């Protein structure tokens, strides 16, 4: 078998040295030198599902949009209805191209009527910032790139709240899912605490100053606070398997500049009724023409084999009908799962398809997504 060596001159978060000291295996993720795993992908995945895990997600970007016409600007650029947001509330949304396909998926946070934070993906930082700034120009608002000001930590799992509660004066039970507050965290005043995440579990993302000293201190304090719950640092490997079990989209896979909102199954975050926005006209045409011709479905591999990104999907007759965009073993579910685009008429639940895994056609069936839903809280 073959192994590979690291790439040169990658961007680093403030915790890069900490990850390396912890013995993390590092990988190039969208131009960033990031930890892919520390103690082991499966252990990290299971820690998040059963206890708590800690992620450095500082590579993600942050756009601050401020001014009297901020809401109008956001409504124009993003597909969800930001007018529904209250102060302290966040929503999953996306910026679309005029043809109704994805620039990126985002989380929009309403700080106030004239102040919004948009959190964006690492690999699309510059593209997103340019897109937002360019398209917001006709509104009275100011668009700033705040990405480098923050170290962003994600504390995720059923024990995330108990862990973080030790470190903050904010009563975390007053922050509902997809809401946020500011409070003192690890002695740092006015720190943004958002009940958001990308794992399908309860959890928080905290935004702290990005200097190395502060970042390391807070990282260590979170690990200490979570020790009794079995907290471990978690890398991008587990981040991917966690989000896959929860059927959350990853840019370049389930969403991209060639995939539209309906194909991706993200209709519920797209409020065409709010009025025109970039991409709304094209999407209305898709509806008028009878809907998307292909759809994103969940697959469970039912014969022996692992379906992976890029593998081709075939019908019973041996014709290729689509492709897997994300596929992997699911460590918690103990199944091999995948998200794939197939034609509309193959998208019904229990439909059987074949995934080509090297030289073998392996049977898979269409199953409901998300594959995993966290248990209802018994509090």
């Amino acid at each position, binding site marked *: 078998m*073959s192994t590979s060596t690291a790439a040169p001159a990658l961007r680093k978060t403030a915790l890069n040295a900490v990850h390396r000291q912890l013995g993390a295996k590092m990988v190039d993720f969208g131009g960033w030198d990031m930890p892919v795993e520390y103690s082991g*992908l499966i252990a990290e995945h299971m820690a998040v599902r059963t206890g708590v895990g800690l992620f450095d997600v500082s590579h993600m970007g942050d756009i601050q949009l401020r001014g009297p016409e901020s809401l109008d600007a956001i409504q124009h650029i993003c597909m969800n209805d930001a007018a529904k947001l209250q102060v302290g509330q966040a929503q999953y949304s996306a910026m679309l191209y005029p043809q109704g396909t994805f620039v990126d998926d985002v989380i929009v946070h309403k700080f106030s009527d004239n102040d919004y934070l948009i959190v964006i993906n690492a690999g699309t930082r510059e593209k997103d910032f340019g897109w937002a700034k360019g398209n917001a120009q006709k509104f009275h608002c100011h668009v700033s790139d705040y990405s480098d000001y923050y170290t962003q930590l994600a504390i995720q799992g059923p024990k995330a709240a108990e862990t973080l509660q030790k470190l903050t004066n904010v009563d975390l039970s007053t922050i509902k899912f997809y809401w946020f507050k500011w409070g003192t965290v690890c002695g740092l005043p006015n720190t943004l605490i958002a009940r958001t995440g990308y794992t399908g579990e309860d959890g928080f993302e905290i935004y702290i100053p990005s200097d190395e000293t502060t970042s390391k201190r807070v990282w260590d304090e979170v690990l200490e606070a979570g020790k009794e719950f079995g907290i471990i640092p978690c890398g991008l490997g587990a981040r991917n398997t966690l989000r896959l079990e929860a059927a959350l989209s990853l840019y370049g896979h389930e969403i991209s500049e060639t995939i539209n909102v309906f194909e991706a199954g993200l209709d519920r975050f797209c409020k065409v009724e709010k009025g025109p926005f970039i991409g709304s006209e094209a999407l209305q045409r898709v509806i008028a023409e009878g809907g998307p011709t292909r759809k994103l479905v969940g697959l469970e591999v039912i014969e022996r084999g*692992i379906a992976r990104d890029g593998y081709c999907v075939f019908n019973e007759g041996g014709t290729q009908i689509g492709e897997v965009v994300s596929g992997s073993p699911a*460590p918690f579910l103990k199944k091999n799962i995948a998200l794939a685009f197939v034609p509309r008429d193959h998208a019904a639940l229990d439909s059987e398809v074949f995934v080509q895994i090297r030289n073998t056609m392996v049977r898979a069936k269409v199953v409901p997504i998300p594959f995993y839903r966290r248990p209802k809280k018994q509090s």
Partner: protein
Amino acid sequence: MAYPANYRYTREHEWIEVDGKTGKIGITDYAQNSLGDIVFVESPKVGAAVKKGEVFGSVESVKAVSDLYSPVTGTVTEVNEELASTPEKINTAAHEAWIMKVELSDPAEVDSLLSAADYEKFIAEETGH
């Protein structure tokens, strides 16, 4: 981790333990560590022909697929069935979790494989230590 002195090794990180005309083959501790949690092993069938330097199967971690290259030419006489249900044995005991046994058609091939010392030197160079 010590590399057994009586095994021979390849640059593709397979090991072979030779006993007369039979060789027992697996992947090294260095390999399992690079791969991460192993979840799937694709082994050849008993009776299959294998050729030195050619792919005989694959090992999959959660993240990736890795081809396995045979250190020797011969015929597969036995396959480790345990790995179908407990592939993680390769992670915990790489030098015991053999994947296949081969009847060697040319035992002299083993002489050109790396010794434990040479293999350790090779991986030290690969990791830049």
